[in-house]
């Protein structure tokens, strides 16, 4: 009788473990998802590249000008979970993504799945990039092939137990990974819809401007409401219409700020937003106007 109970318990826990693995396993898209996308539109790919701010983390720290296009990696990213070292994503065959396929790149970008089928850490903001269209992924991938190669090999992440166990990321994804809209806005207005795509998707603005819970998931009710600065002192500002700092800005003030780095009262952009602004300044005015329209449309939070 006792043995039977033990056996039952073993079967039960085995089944529970299998079920847990099943619901938290890495889930790339089927191969067909990435087929038939045709030749990439490199000009659009470059715009997604700047909207996505890839260089801010993946270029060598302090590099300027053309060197920003060498995605050699290596930048340390400090977080409450440990230090992440940003990988080389240049087209180098050994140190970078040179041997990767479009499907492998696309699954990393939108499903957080690495080339070997492993979970990626959400310090790489696939939680936002999950919203990218397959066309934009294809165009971006095409553009990235045109960038210089770098042989730099970034050090491995320095994460304490239990954050060094990638399997656990399946649980994080189960709780937090979604490609759905973060907030409800009037998407019948194409400008606001475009802004929503840029801000919630490639722009990944919420990654810094939205506060997180203890498990590193967004406080979904506080979308873009501001958060502690992950790099130390100060706060990342609230950018909803309830913001203390920018609620008085008009849409054209926001566009002007993203284009020039000047606030309406002629202070300037500061902190890590400096790089973000320099990247976004490369987008067409219509895209920046769309971002401004969306920021005026999201729910006000104080």
């Amino acid at each position, binding site marked *: 009788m006792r043995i039977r109970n033990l056996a039952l318990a073993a079967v039960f826990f085995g089944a529970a473990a299998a079920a847990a693995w099943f619901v938290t396993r890495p889930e790339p898209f089927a191969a067909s998802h990435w087929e038939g996308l045709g030749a990439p539109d490199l000009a659009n790919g470059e715009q997604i590249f700047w909207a996505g701010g890839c260089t801010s983390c993946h270029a060598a720290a302090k590099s300027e000008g053309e060197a920003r296009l060498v995605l050699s990696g290596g930048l340390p990213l400090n977080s409450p979970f440990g230090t992440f070292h940003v990988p080389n994503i240049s087209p180098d065959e050994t140190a970078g993504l040179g041997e990767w396929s479009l499907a492998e790149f696309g699954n990393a970008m939108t499903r957080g799945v690495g080339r070997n089928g492993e979970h990626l850490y959400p310090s790489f903001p696939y939680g936002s990039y999950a919203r990218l269209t397959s066309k934009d992924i294809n165009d971006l991938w095409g553009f990235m092939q045109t960038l210089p190669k770098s042989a730099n090999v970034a050090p491995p992440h320095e994460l304490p137990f239990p954050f060094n166990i990638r399997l656990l990321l399946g649980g994080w994804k189960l709780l937090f990974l979604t490609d759905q809209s973060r907030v409800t806005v009037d998407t019948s207005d194409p400008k606001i819809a475009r802004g929503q795509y840029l801000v919630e998707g490639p722009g990944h603005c919420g990654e810094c401007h939205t506060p997180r819970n203890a498990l590193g998931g967004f406080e979904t009710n506080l979308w873009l409401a501001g958060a502690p600065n992950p790099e130390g002192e100060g706060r990342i500002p609230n950018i909803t219409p309830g913001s203390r700092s920018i609620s008085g800005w008009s849409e054209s003030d926001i566009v002007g700020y993203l284009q020039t780095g*000047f606030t309406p*009262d002629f202070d*300037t952009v500061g*902190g890590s937003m*400096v790089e973000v602004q320099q990247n976004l300044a490369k987008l067409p005015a219509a895209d920046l106007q769309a971002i401004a329209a969306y920021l005026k449309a999201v729910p006000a939070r104080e």
Partner: protein
Amino acid sequence: MKSKAVFLAIALAGLVAGAVTAADEPQAVRQELMKKIGASTGALAAIAKGEKPYDAAVVTASLQTISENSKAFPDQFPAGSETGLETEASPKIWENMDDFRAKSVKLATDVDAVLAQLPADQAAVGAALGVIGKDCASCHENYRIKK
């Protein structure tokens, strides 16, 4: 009644003295320098955007204010002024004082170069503003903390 008035006078005098002291603190001095740089930048931007007509006197005066204030600016960070009076100065300033100074000198140098060849029209003011804005941001990137 009289003692009440005297008391009030003393309290008021104390308030005024307090205000004077606060305005003399390096934190307040540097905030004022920055405010004037901001106002001058705003005057230049109004011309660059075409909101105000080109006016050589305004351009010259604005550039001179930015030049003078950026030269005085890095001297306003003595030890002991790291905190207080809502300062947005980053502790990194005192860790990298030479680099911090160099950034302020770069702004002053760039502005003096613009002054030497005064922008002659709206477009030239816009171009000058591009250079100045980059200098502002390159320092604010590391040394200013928004709270």
